[in-house]
């Protein structure tokens, strides 16, 4: 049953990878990366249950946090052109 869920998640991962390769705009790729991150979190949780190791859930939690921070950073870069210097806007 966990193997079936893991297989479903792997299929989802590969479909999201296809979108990441084909995506015309860079934001399609960021959508695919975001989906891949979420599916990775779920896959870690399911594999943790599959192999009977509860510590995989901590990995999934940390990966979820990193995924969001990474997506926001990439988006800020593509939105504003650069990530900005410390103390950029305070003066203006």
């Amino acid at each position, binding site marked *: *049953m*966990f193997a*079936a*869920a893991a*297989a*479903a*998640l792997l*299929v*989802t991962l590969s*479909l*999201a990878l*296809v*979108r990441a390769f084909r995506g*015309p*705009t860079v*934001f*399609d790729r*960021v*959508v*695919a990366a*975001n*989906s891949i991150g*979420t*599916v990775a*979190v*779920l896959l870690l*949780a*399911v594999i943790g*249950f599959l192999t009977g190791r*509860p510590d995989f*859930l*901590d990995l*999934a*939690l940390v990966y*979820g*946090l990193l995924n*969001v921070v990474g*997506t*926001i950073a990439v*988006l*800020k870069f*593509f*939105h504003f052109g650069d990530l900005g210097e410390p103390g950029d806007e305070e003066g203006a």
Partner: protein
Amino acid sequence: MLLDIASWALILLGGAFCITGAIGLLRMPDFFTRMHAASIIDTLGAAFILMGLILQAGFSLVTVKLIAIGILLFLTSPVATHALARAALARGVQPMLAKGDVSSNS
């Protein structure tokens, strides 16, 4: 026994929703519709799989961690999707309004 069947059904349903979201991610014609399809994975797929795992784990520390992952996904995926939509709009990604309207990224 009933609990096992329930967790089986929830997990397989979550997997089905994940695959549906991924197929939508591929087949949708426009960026914003793809984003809608991708959010199905974040919300329905993740919720059902995590609920199925919670039923499987019962009252233990594992359930607390699963609930923490659920809360994390519940709070952060809207933030990411919102930032994504704003960045795309600001960078001139035009939504496809009419059928066959050749937007820049279809």
